[in-house]
């Protein structure tokens, strides 16, 4: 085989080989680069900063795939509950005027320990643990 054609053959092989190596190594290198959100939030979630929520107020926070109701009862007292109503799965809210957790769908009412006090819900709300880490409000599985 004339040297020119031999060179072409080796160029084809070499080019393809290098190209394929790049196509393998590129994903591997990108894979090893830590993503922006550095870990799956599973056991605990930061529900905002301490100053984001006033006393006697509540807000909904995403915990993994579930909504959680974070309630600041007093300056230093925080509670968190599953925000899914146990009646027909509507999302509950905190009622600051009556200081209870209320479901707008069929007027279900829960007290601040998650217990049902009025309306159709058959079971209490599951409670989560809340503690402060610096100025972060951390919600974790109870």
């Amino acid at each position: 085989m004339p040297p020119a054609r031999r060179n072409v053959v080796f160029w084809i092989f070499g080019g393809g080989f290098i190209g394929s190596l790049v196509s393998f190594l590129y994903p591997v290198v990108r894979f090893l680069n830590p993503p922006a959100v550095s870990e799956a939030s599973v056991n605990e979630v930061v529900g905002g900063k301490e100053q984001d929520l006033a006393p006697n107020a509540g807000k909904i926070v995403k915990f993994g795939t579930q909504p959680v109701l974070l309630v600041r009862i007093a300056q230093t007292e925080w509670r968190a509950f599953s925000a899914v109503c146990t009646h027909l799965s509507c999302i509950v809210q905190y009622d600051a005027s009556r200081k209870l957790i209320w479901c707008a769908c069929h007027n279900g009412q829960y007290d601040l320990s998650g217990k049902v006090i009025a309306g159709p819900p058959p079971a209490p709300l599951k409670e989560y643990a809340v503690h402060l880490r610096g100025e972060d409000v951390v919600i974790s599985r109870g």
Partner: protein
Amino acid sequence: MLPTQPIHRKKTIAAWFQDRLAWDSISQFLAHKTVPVHSGTIWYAFGGITLFLFVIQVVTGILLLVYYRPTPAEAYESVQFIMTRVAFGWLIRSIHIWSANLMILSAFVHMFSVAFLHAYRKPRELVWLSGIMLLALALGFGFSGYLLPWNTISFFATKVGTDMATFVPWMGSTLGRYLRGGDAVGGATLTRFFGFHVAVLPALTSLFLLFHLGLVQKFGISTPPWVEKRFRGAGTKSAQMPFFPDFFLHELMVWYGALALLGILAALFPFGLGEKADAFAPAPAGIRPEWYFLAPFYTLKLIPGHVAGIEGEVVGLLGFGLLAFWWAALPFWGQRPDGTVRSKLVTGGAVAFIAYLSTFSLLGYLR
């Protein structure tokens, strides 16, 4: 007068290593390694394919280890994290799963081709036995790895599988507890299976692989008896091709073809996540193990609850044990004392075995 200069030698890096490793002998050996050429030469590739896919498993497995967390609270979520948040995480995971399936398939093809080409005969009986051991380890990899994503299917498949272990006579319940790390499948099982999958099984596999490959290098690639006979009759040595570069280049082509296939499968048929395992939920209908366990699974389904007073599962397990023993002992019943192979017996046995495995796997999939 003594020479003041040392005798001039090529001061290459290769020479430096040669002085310290004596690897010339290796390159000499490799240069003389040959592969028999005949109509069945293509089957010689499957051992290498299995090895290649195993290396891919190790590489992708190590990459997954960077992000995976082996606890019930985090396993599923970490796999979800890999699939959604990590760049190309979906690719690495899908390649890992597809390569696992292809590796086991390739191992079966390799094993049956060895049987049909009678490469198990003297002096290669130990190669066969170590190969059977490697297949068992591969199935162990598959079973332990299947649990790690901690989704509904893997949880219940593990439950069914470890329940089967409890039917082994005498040591069944102990075996079950050792496997599960307790009385039920749970976090302890996950930790154990993770340990098996990333440490114990790789270590054992490395040992047996070294042994298996070492023996193959020592004895060379086996030529089928009828090819040997043909050439003995003609009075010449059987046709051989050099391993380097010819066969190796062919092998590289096949390996690259396997890479292409893996890429296509991983990109076009990625694996899903399923739902996170819930120990208290009832088992979903139609639960099935992985395809390589379908044949024994379906066989067990067919065995009645009790056979002559013994529990059906025990009968099934004993049957599988006997079948495995029979197949592992192939070199012993497949050869006559005078060294010739019982060609028809082995070929018939292998065909029957393939027929059983494929029919029952298909039935297990469809029913």
